[in-house]
């Protein structure tokens, strides 16, 4: 290493120092500590007790609430992510049609997702889902004629509480839409011209040009949305007063982790967090594993 290179490296590490401190003390260290804690029993006040795999054994074989939380989280993810993504792609495609006032539309569609996970929105949705006087059941009544008393009870019903969370998540399509819109504008127009010369109609162009061109963005969004929806917390906490009810039907993983933390079961809570971490990594790995459908334009130029 020449002295100039060394000087540059030293200066680089000075720039990096905040990040390095964070990486060691607030990321790497805590991950290791949490891994260790997950094999312990600890309530903060009494000494730590090493218990081996007990937390994990308890979780997998003896804790129906864990399975329930995992199921609820998966249910929410597998419904909200695909439908939400499809909706945001459709909205982006519509907006890409050179309609008038696209800037205004973009703002309107994006606004709810900015307010998204805030507590204020959760309070609002709790009110909209109100079984007897909520806006949703009123609208259902107006459009379908079903009497309000026979409409779903949403957050008060074990069967409808999760669909309610899924419905609420559709108001976040704006976040994905912005990114798809940028992706659509990046697809070279020459491809469309070529397709048109080959006699492809608009529908065929959508499937052979637009969607393949958009696939890297779809892939990115898929990963980010799944990671995000596995971590849903704020809305559920506020709408169910931190309980995840009724009958644990909205008990999601992060809420369960928080409940255990709140009751000072630090070891068990860490073990739960680790399982969530592994589930997220597994989901991400699987997506990369089956990412053959993603088309990168650069690959052709190899």
């Amino acid at each position, binding site marked *: 290493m020449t002295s100039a290179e060394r000087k540059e490296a030293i200066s680089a590490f000075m720039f990096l120092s905040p*990040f390095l401190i964070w990486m060691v003390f607030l990321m790497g260290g805590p991950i290791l500590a949490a891994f260790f804690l997950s094999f312990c029993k600890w309530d903060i006040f009494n000494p730590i007790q090493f218990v081996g795999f007990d937390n994990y054994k308890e979780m997998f074989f003896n804790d129906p609430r864990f399975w329930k939380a995992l199921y609820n989280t998966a249910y929410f993810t597998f419904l909200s992510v695909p439908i939400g993504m499809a909706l945001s792609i459709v909205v982006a495609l519509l907006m890409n049609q050179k309609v008038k006032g696209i800037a205004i539309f973009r*703002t309107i569609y994006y606004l709810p997702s900015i307010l998204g996970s805030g507590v*204020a929105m959760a309070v609002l949705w709790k009110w909209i889902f109100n079984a007897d006087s909520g806006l949703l059941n009123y609208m259902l009544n107006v459009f379908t004629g079903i009497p309000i008393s026979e409409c779903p009870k949403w957050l008060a019903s074990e069967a409808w509480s999760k669909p309610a969370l899924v419905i609420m998540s559709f108001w976040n399509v704006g976040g994905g839409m*912005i990114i798809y819109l940028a992706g659509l504008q990046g697809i070279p127009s020459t491809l469309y011209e070529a397709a048109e010369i080959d006699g492809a109609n608009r529908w065929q162009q959508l499937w052979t040009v637009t969607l393949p061109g958009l696939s890297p963005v779809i892939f990115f969004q898929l990963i980010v949305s799944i990671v995000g929806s596995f971590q849903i917390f704020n809305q559920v906490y506020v709408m169910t007063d931190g309980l995840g009810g009724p009958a644990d039907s909205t008990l999601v993983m992060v809420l369960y982790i928080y409940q255990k933390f709140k009751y000072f079961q630090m070891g068990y809570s860490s073990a739960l967090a680790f399982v969530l971490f592994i589930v997220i990594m597994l989901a991400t790995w699987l997506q990369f594993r089956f990412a053959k459908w993603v088309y990168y334009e650069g690959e052709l130029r190899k």
Partner: protein
Amino acid sequence: MTDTTIPSPTAAPNGFWASKRRTENVTRWTVFVVLVVGSITMLLPVVWMLITSFKTRADVFAVPPPNSTFFQTLKFWIPIPPHPENYPQAWTVSGMYSGDSWSFFGIPVQGITFTTYTLNTLFIAVCGCLGTTLSSSLVAFAFARLRFPGRGPLFLLCLATMMVPTQVTMIPTFILFRNMPAFLGGPWYNNFFPLVVPAFLGGGAYNIFLMRQFFMSIPYEMDEAAKIDGCTNFGVFWRILLPLCKPALTTVAVFSFLWNWNDFLNPLIYLDSNSKKTLALGLTNFVSLYGQDYQLLMAASLVISLPIIVMFLAGQRYFIQGIATTGLK
């Protein structure tokens, strides 16, 4: 899809252009109408929040029956007469903490209202925003512009942290902060240190990534010219690159402000006494105490969301571009 109405180019050439233009017009209008209907759907919840906030408690629960009169239906959608007094009432109703006091720059103030929560949230959000913007751009500069051993792996590691759920690091971090030694202001519990200091330590992988993408898009000749003129690395960063990155900085600043404003889990864990609570926590408190007074809850929720809406409208030109770039590269 409305697109199917477009005839394929193989259609009869006879009058082809005229018919294509007409169907294109039809398509355009259909798309426009669909987007308008979608817009109404998207805005309806927020508008409903506004409507509810001006109603009386009795009117809040009055849903017009199927065969209701025009006036009943109208009253459901438009609060007549409006009750703006819900707003001051919602703001001060947490007078149940009137016994508690808090201090405003050292001056003790009796009674806790949303004013307390707003000032707390504002402090946290402004500090968090400053810290994130400053430290993420510093770190991103190193990743984008400086050569050092291990740059590639370290950047990958940085990106990988995006996958770690906060709950994994939550407990050890909580314990670390609670046991912070006194010379560092410890214990970091029931004060703003645990909510503000981490922002100054890199600002998170997403923001570092976003800033790096922007730095990378600026030609390297800029740096070289500045260095020939005697600029240090920090000089290049501070005088050359940062001023060129205003859109990216705005994106990071707006997003971290919003994130801190909306953050719920961290304040929930670290803040205990009422005088320290943030708006998000204050609102949840309010919900559990006044759960049925939806006109007050909606008034409070709307006021809390207002700064977000204003910031969004003011900064959207910049940060829509900002997120789009990160999502694509």
